């Protein structure tokens, strides 16, 4: 199958199952769809529908059983663990529900962490990290540890860390799931701006309809099946 010009993620006939001792639990069945460059896609579905698994497969932190996933020019389903690690470092930005910052690192150090896998000199790494923190409005919190910040602030630091390497795609797994309503709105606005103003391709897993409303495209998963075509978000 040829890739369309503006397709950044191409998912073809993907199957995934988990092994629980002798039991095989199928999670995803024959998933096929594309994500266009600059898209903001929300993957929705009930708990256990396989949306986080699909996000993990697209982000290269889990491996498919069958099928192909192509991101940009790279067929990530053929990459080894080491190659996947290099690819993730260069191509994917991660935003998680529980922020997942390193507790012993300050905000600026957390943001700088992925840049240590690049060839950037120390000074540039620091200026890139400062810029990213500035972008999420946390330049005044640079020297604070995650434990000294609110949930919303920690998630903003996580966003800064996700964008600091200028990745091809941004994946967000329930990014507002652990936040109060006000903080959640702030974070969603920030993610939305990353898409609209910076043109970032964003794939977001959520079961929160308010969060999903910010996305341009909605896709629904149920019991491991992609149950409809992409629908344009009413907003």
């Amino acid at each position, binding site marked *: 199958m040829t890739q369309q010009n503006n397709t950044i993620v191409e998912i073809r006939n993907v199957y995934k199952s988990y092994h629980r001792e002798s039991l095989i639990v199928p999670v995803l069945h024959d998933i096929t769809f594309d994500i266009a460059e600059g898209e903001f896609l929300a993957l929705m579905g009930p708990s256990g529908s396989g949306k*986080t*698994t699909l996000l*993990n497969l697209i*982000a290269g*932190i*889990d491996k498919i059983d069958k099928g192909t996933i192509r991101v940009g020019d790279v067929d990530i389903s053929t990459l080894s663990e*080491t190659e996947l*690690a*290099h*690819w*993730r*470092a*260069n191509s994917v930005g*991660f935003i*998680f*529900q*529980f922020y*997942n*910052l*390193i*507790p*012993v*690192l300050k905000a600026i*150090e957390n943001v*700088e*962490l*992925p840049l*240590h*896998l690049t060839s950037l000199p*120390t000074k540039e790494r620091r200026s890139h990290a400062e810029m990213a923190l500035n972008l999420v409005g946390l330049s005044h919190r640079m020297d604070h540890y995650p434990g000294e910040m609110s949930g919303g602030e920690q998630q903003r630091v996580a966003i800064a*860390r996700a964008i600091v390497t200028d990745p091809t795609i941004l994946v967000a797994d329930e990014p507002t799931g*652990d936040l109060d309503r006000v903080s959640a709105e702030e974070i969603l606005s920030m993610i939305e701006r990353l898409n609209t103003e910076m043109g970032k391709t964003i794939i977001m897993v959520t079961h929160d309809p308010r969060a999903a409303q910010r996305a341009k495209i909605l896709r629904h998963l149920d019991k491991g099946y992609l149950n409809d075509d992409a629908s344009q978000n009413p907003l």
Partner: protein
Amino acid sequence: MMLLKILFRNAFHNKLRSSLTILGIAVAILAFGLLRTVISSWYSGVEAASTTRLVTRNAISIIFPLPISYQEKIRQIAGVKIVSYGNWFGGVYIEEKNFFPNFCVEPKTYFQLYPEFVLDPLQQKALLADRKGFVAGRKLAERFGWKIGDTVILKGTIYLGNWDFVLRGIYHGRDETIDETQFFFHWTYLNEVIKKRSPNWADKVGFYMIGISRPDIAPDVALAIDNAFKNSLAETLTETEKAFNQGFIAMSGAIVTAIQMVSFVVIFIIMAVVANTMAMTTRERTGDYSIIKTLGFGAKDITILIFGESLIITATGCIIGIILTFPAAKAFGHSLANYFPVFLVSAETIYYDIAAAFLIAVLAAIIPTRHAIRIRIADGLRRIG
């Protein structure tokens, strides 16, 4: 650099747990160091032995004497430079608990043979001039408050009766590894008394100390001495001073082995403690390691983080343990000076401490590292929250 920052901060993140683990390691290293020092002090006589000194004794057993007349024959053997001789006296000062080694020797040649016993020439002259004179080691004189000119009475356990001596000299060790708790007096004094009491036992020595010109001729000289007295009434057994001293250590070999085993048990226990700490730490940080892997860091980086943390905790405990070993050994050495005249923490013991700490750090980190590397990122991330 960032990884180093993480591993250093991780190591002391849980202050209580890290402190207790470090304390445990420090105590274990201290115990290990002291036990090793006990062993090395046991061997201090062997270590201090010269390669140019031989010991000749009765071939049947050390408890049987040799005739004094052998001295001249030994002196004539090629390669022999000095011949001295002596007996174990086995005297007790006031009561038995005041034990210290005491020998009667031929003082002029004996101090020539043992330059590590440093004796002031004037004191040596005074000793030679007084048949009842004796020389004590510095520590021994300090222990009983003896001063030059003091009369000291020993109660003989082998040569019965009270024997009075006059302190004519106090020797110092050439360095701190030399035993300064010995007591030497004139063999002639003992021999004269024996001559009067039981003439059959007179003119006998317990051992000959022989100085040779070069260490490499020791086997030939030893063989020549023993051949010279073959088929005599008192055949001889000649060996290097080191082998002679080792023979004494071998008699208490079981105790040394027991101490060695205890020292390794100490290390094993602390290894289990550190391994447990590292396992808890790694389990607690499974999420962090998964994030680090998610960001693109590999197995090598995770290995550095876990092994590094284990090394930092163990090294900190090890350094504290080593620092504590010196004052502890000093206090231990003071209270057991009668049994361990030389109780010094050797460089070898410190190397053992460091090697043990390194081994603990590495072994304790292997399984947690393997687990952290092998766990799927998705499973690791699931543990957060």
